[in-house]
């Protein structure tokens, strides 16, 4: 008797949990559309930046900027060689791996100025990154600190702490404080998201079906990309047949797309918030024996090569890996007392279309390489990035 009672109790608990899940999910749907005014403003701003012309050398996009404001760094001026410290969120994905190699190669260009490049990898843990930065500051062996934060909010206080003792440069994600000398970044997620969505709107037959694939919820950069795309689709009167999270896992992506194909029969365009899944999307169509739809992607070589080879309709907004060069260049400039773009150093964000695809695609580079590495002229190219000569 007592046994069946606890049994029922357990089932009850599970049922309550399930209900709670469902309730929370409903609540989420309601609040998704808040803050739309701020979103609109940022959206418009990034739209103008995409068409603006950056200042700086045209053949070196990593030295260009879309913001013209400069910061004076005379007070940081020091005699070389410099001890550079770098607190990295992680190198847990190919983009970060390519980027870290770009930064190391850039450092090789400045052998005479750089005494040491000390590196701390936070393995995607905010609390480890905070400790790492503190250890750098306490250690007193850094002339400048570069931070690629794992989470903006989490790293803000410790970056503020570090700013008090040495010049700080942030890049990739930034922190919510102005204390770093400059924050290297690209135009932004809205620009990324709208580029792909606009292309779909322009190229898809009327009444076509769009599937949106997302990596994971709750991550700023991906949220802005999909918000922008959703906005573009809404404006064009397109209602995506589905929005799915794939965790950027190829097998899951392929399974999701296959299931959609079996459910709706035909899909005309697939928008992705992260280019790593694009090839899996293409393969799902191949395996189903269907023609390729419009597939958006990124500057990852496997997508570019597939696009080039198969000739489907594609577009690749980018999140340039050359910003890893920029961060180090900025750090050295600061120590030399040269003014740098700041407090935001906004890098251009190239858009790869069929018109300029040839310029980026390179069959000699490995599939997980990023074409906007800006590394073609760096020492060790292409072997350092796994490419063939």
């Amino acid at each position: 008797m007592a046994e069946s009672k606890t049994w029922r109790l357990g089932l009850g608990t599970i049922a309550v949990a399930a209900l709670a899940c469902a309730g929370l999910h409903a609540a989420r749907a309601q609040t998704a559309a808040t803050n739309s005014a701020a979103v609109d403003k940022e959206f418009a701003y990034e739209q103008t930046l995409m068409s603006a012309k950056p200042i700086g050398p045209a053949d070196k996009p990593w030295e260009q900027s879309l913001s013209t404001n400069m910061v004076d760094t005379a007070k940081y001026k020091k005699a070389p060689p410099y001890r550079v410290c770098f607190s990295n969120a992680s190198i847990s994905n190919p983009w970060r791996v390519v980027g870290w190699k770009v930064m190391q190669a850039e450092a090789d260009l400045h052998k005479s100025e750089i005494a040491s490049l000390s590196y701390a990898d936070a393995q995607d843990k905010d609390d480890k990154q905070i400790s790492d930065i503190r250890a750098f500051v306490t250690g007193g062996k850094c002339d400048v600190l570069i931070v690629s934060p794992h989470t903006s909010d989490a790293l803000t206080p410790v970056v503020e702490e570090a700013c008090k003792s040495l010049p700080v440069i942030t890049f990739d994600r930034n922190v919510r404080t102005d204390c770093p000398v400059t924050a290297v970044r690209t135009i932004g997620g809205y620009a990324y998201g709208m580029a792909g969505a606009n292309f779909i709107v322009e190229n898809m037959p009327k009444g076509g079906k769009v599937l949106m694939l997302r990596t994971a919820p709750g991550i700023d950069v991906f949220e802005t990309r999909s918000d922008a795309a959703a906005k573009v689709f809404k404006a064009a009167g397109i209602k995506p047949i589905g929005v799915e999270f794939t965790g950027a896992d190829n097998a899951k992506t392929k399974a999701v797309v296959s299931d959609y194909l079996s459910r709706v029969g035909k899909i005309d365009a697939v928008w992705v918030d992260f280019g790593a899944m694009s090839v899996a999307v293409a393969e799902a169509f191949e395996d189903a024996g269907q023609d390729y739809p419009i597939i958006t992607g990124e500057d990852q070589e496997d997508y570019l090569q597939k696009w080039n080879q198969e000739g489907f309709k594609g577009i690749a907004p980018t999140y340039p890996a050359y910003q890893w060069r920029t961060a180090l260049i900025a750090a050295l400039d600061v120590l030399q007392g040269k003014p740098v773009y700041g407090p935001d150093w906004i890098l251009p964000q190239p858009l790869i279309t069929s018109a300029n695809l040839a310029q980026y695609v390179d069959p000699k580079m490995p599939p997980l390489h990023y074409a906007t590495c800006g590394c073609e002229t760096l020492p060790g190219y292409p072997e350092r990035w796994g490419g063939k000569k």
Partner: protein
Amino acid sequence: MSGAAIPRGGLAKFRLPLALVICAAVVYAATALGTAQGEQLSWSGVMGLLQRMVALGIVAVGQTLVLLVGSIDLSVANLISVSAVIASHVMNGNTDAIALGVLAAIAIGILVGAVNGVLVAKLKVSPLIATLGVGLVLQGVLTTSYETLAGSVPASFRVLAYGRVAGLPLAILLLIVVVALAGFVLARTAAGYRLYGVGGNVQTARLAGIRTDRFIIGAHIAASVTAAISGLYLASWLGAGTPWVGRDGGYDLDSIAVVVIGGTLLSGGRGGVAGTIAGVFVFATIDAVFNMLQIDPFLGQVLRGVIVVGAVASYTIRTKAHVA
């Protein structure tokens, strides 16, 4: 099971933890001096090292209790995220809501712990599966509802992680309090004695008149509460809870690893928080030493695995009984 050569009685039971701590400390100091980073041995350097222990240390104390009672908790990582997110949502930058946020996080901890405990003790679900399942449910709920639950903690709450009392970071005090409390309960109170009894042999404990289910549920609640406290600390340390803070931190498997490195038996009934805290110290020094030595992070990962296995093997290898 008794084959492992663990000294017993009185001060002797601190021999293993002490050895671990001394080894780790020597390696840390040698590395700091060897790489000319003597500053890492200064007060603030050492405090920085200790602060690396806080989040893992608090939850590992809870994990110790669950392992001692013969269970295990894989849901702590996701619970840490839940606690951090709930706390920052409830506080939402508002100083007046701090107490409410803390209460909410602890309450969720108690609830999750009770569910874990009931599944394990009453429904006899294998604790690995029960807590893995509960962890997955928490993860699902969290990722679904994160946008609804966004928020951040007020500056005054961040004192917990960043404040100092007489030069000693508050966070380290918090860890000391949690460790001391758990240590006291285990070593001095009847409840602690019975907890060891339940973990050592449920049948024996039951026949000795102990309400074993209550202890299993209680240990799970305690573990979940420590996870909630860890979550609160991380919210304070990071300014806001994120739904991945616990999982990315690997607090589930790491907390189990440090407890076992500290000499607590996975099957329960032997061990304690002193060993656990020594294990946490070892983990903290691994991170710090690898940083100082500029070890490639991938190589670091390989070495971490080797160290975990090596540390445990160093005293299990003499065990005669079969282990699985």
